[in-house]
């Protein structure tokens, strides 16, 4: 009994730190073993020729120089950029507008919020299968609908010119996650700002433009960063849709390489061509590209992201 009453030799703060470390240790261990470890291994492999079957052979920077001369590397990068350039801003704007609508005080708004969020909880594989049926030129439901409007629907996933637009449309299906984050941001805007703006005679558009938008820039920033990373990691949906292609459809990344996204080409190099070293190089180049863009966004955030209560220069 006496010993439990003895004052600890460690200070309270020190003890709390130790407990904190003890609690986060499983995560840290997992991170080191399952994330940092494989990352370092792939960094090593990126300087080797490695086909999984034989031992890795050190080749220095050859994989990196080969990448520069690889036409399909540039092609896959351009496909990914093209998709990102359309899908990312479209997804951000679309989800923001939906969130603004879902922030209105109308009857049954919770049902609407649920309806818009639900699609985002469906797994990517199921979404891909669902949309491949919707887009099917012969038996899908989209083209007959377009026909009613007098528009001849394209082949979508079987037409190299329409495969990317189809994937962009499909991506809007999963904006529920963004909507929830925007909604939280919109509900955090102090109402007294709107009241003050109203007193000053601001119109609805002006309240949106000069109050809502600046006050929600932190969540826009957050969604932009996560969206950018997600877009450059785009894989599952394309894999599911194009892996069903027969030879006539050009196989994975088809038709006619129109969906050969960066990650699809990386996957092919790793698991179809057994160029695991080269695939590791691609993974690190992608990491650097995403890191570069993310830093750029962070750097630019000073000019367009407004944090309430933040003092400039701090």
């Amino acid at each position, binding site marked *: 009994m006496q010993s439990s009453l003895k004052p600890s030799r460690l200070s309270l703060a020190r003890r709390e730190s130790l407990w904190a470390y003890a609690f986060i240790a499983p995560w840290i261990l997992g991170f080191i073993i399952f994330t940092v470890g494989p990352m370092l291994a792939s960094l090593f492999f990126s300087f080797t020729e490695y086909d999984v079957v034989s031992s890795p052979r050190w080749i220095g920077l050859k994989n990196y120089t080969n990448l520069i001369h690889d036409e399909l590397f540039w092609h896959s990068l351009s496909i990914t950029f093209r998709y990102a350039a359309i899908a990312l801003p479209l997804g951000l704007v679309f989800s923001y507008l939906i969130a603004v609508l879902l922030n209105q005080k109308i009857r049954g708004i919770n049902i609407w919020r649920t309806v818009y969020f639900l699609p985002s909880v469906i797994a990517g594989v199921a979404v891909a299968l669902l949309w*491949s049926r919707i887009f099917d030129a*012969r038996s899908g439901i989209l083209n007959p609908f377009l026909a009613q409007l007098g528009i001849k629907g394209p*082949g979508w996933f*079987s037409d190299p010119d329409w495969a990317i637009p189809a994937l962009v449309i499909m991506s809007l299906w999963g904006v529920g996650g963004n909507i929830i984050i925007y909604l939280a941001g919109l509900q955090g805007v102090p109402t007294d700002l709107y009241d003050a703006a109203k007193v000053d005679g601001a119109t609805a558009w002006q309240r949106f433009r000069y109050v809502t938008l600046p006050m929600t820039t932190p969540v826009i920033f957050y969604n932009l960063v996560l969206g950018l990373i997600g877009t450059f990691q785009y894989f599952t949906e394309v894999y599911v849709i194009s892996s069903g*292609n027969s*030879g006539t459809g050009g196989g994975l990344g088809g*038709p006619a390489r129109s969906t050969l996204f960066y990650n699809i080409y990386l996957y*092919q190099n790793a698991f*179809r061509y057994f160029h695991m070293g080269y695939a590791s190089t691609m993974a690190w180049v992608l990491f650097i590209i995403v890191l570069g863009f993310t830093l750029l966004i962070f750097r630019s955030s000073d000019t367009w992201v407004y944090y309430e209560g933040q003092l400039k220069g701090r």
Partner: protein
Amino acid sequence: MKKNLFNVLTLLVLASALLSACAGAAPATPVEKVKVVIFVGMGTGTDPDQVDAQNKLAEKFNSTHDNIEIEFLIVPHEEYATRYLAMLSGGNAPQLVGPNGISSVAEFFDTWEDITPYIEAEKLDLSDFYGPAVALNQYPDKNTGLPLGLYPSYLYYNKDLFDAAGLDYPTHDFEDKSWNMDKLREVAMQLTVDKNGKNATDADFDPENIVQYGYDDSWDGMRGTLADWGAENVGRPTTSDYKTAVADSPEWIQGLQWVSDGVWKDHFIGSAEVQAGRDSAGVDPFGPGTTGMFYSHTWYLAEGLHDLTFSADIAPYPYNPKGERIARIDADNFTIPKDAKNKQQAWEVMKWLTSPEIIVDVCRIYGCIPARKSVQAKFLEQLKTDYPGIDYDVIFKSIDYLDKPNNEEWIPEWGKIEDALNNGLSLIYSGEEKDATKVLTDSNAEVQKILDEYWASH
């Protein structure tokens, strides 16, 4: 205290004596069975019916063998590469992989064990196997496995559609040279019908609203599509030393232009849009009854020739413009990964699976023709039960016209070259490019570049 100690020691001695006595009477410890895991998923074998049949096969083996236990590891086809490579790199290679087509043998060529030493050690007699089946597993530096089955190719045709069009069925006479690619085109156009009932030879035929196609070969890639056209290297896009690309041979160009015209000019072949519709609906090209002739292999017997709502038969593939008949073939085997443990036991299982007593059962699961001559009569009886009313001679005779070099056989950078060529095929089927010369010239340049890079580092 002393008395207690004495009692305890006495009890211990008695217990030891009792245990010793019992030990003699106890049954001998059973010999631990060595497990042989058979990785299934590279080709066929993952349909629910096939999984059940494989489990029954495993029960049959396990109940008759004391020292080896087999287990079929079923891997979804779309995951086979990642799972197999993960098992290899994790030091957990399966003992056997199969059934493997020629293409998956080629895809993972460097990972397979050479079984020549096993054959030589036992002086195993291979004379009962069909010669082509043995040859298809034999590469310059290794034998990848004992032959399991062959998948010859021929035309499946819908008799009802031929009857409706008032056309004679395709000849079953292998000597009839009038059955050539021109004739196939002519018949296929007459079998291609629009929503108004006009066929593709009619002047007012509506190509925008086709409801029935004359011909389909969409289950194969570029090499398979063009292997039958009589090029010097047949189904191989390189010279025999694998150093020069020959994908732009006149025969391949002629064949691909025939396909391109078939899709876009003569309209008897469905475009990529039609194929995608079938893929997404999960139906095969022949089963729905809207394709007159479907060029495929015996695996379609097991996969599609059940529950047809129409009458069907099979016929030889036509002669090519050079007056030769080539009907591409595939073959299955089981392979042993180099890194597998218990390879001797894997070899025993491979022998069992391909033995005369078992091979018919195994081939019925996968839809192949057993690679042993001695079981042909038994298998034929089985075919007659499973698929009544078709001309079985066509199946067996087609073996004689196999493509050699084979359309799936190993070449350097197999997967990369396969993808490059299939990209060209998708340009044709999607209509992005309709000129076969342009497509194959570009594809050939790409293949040559891949070969040059390969040889620069080998």
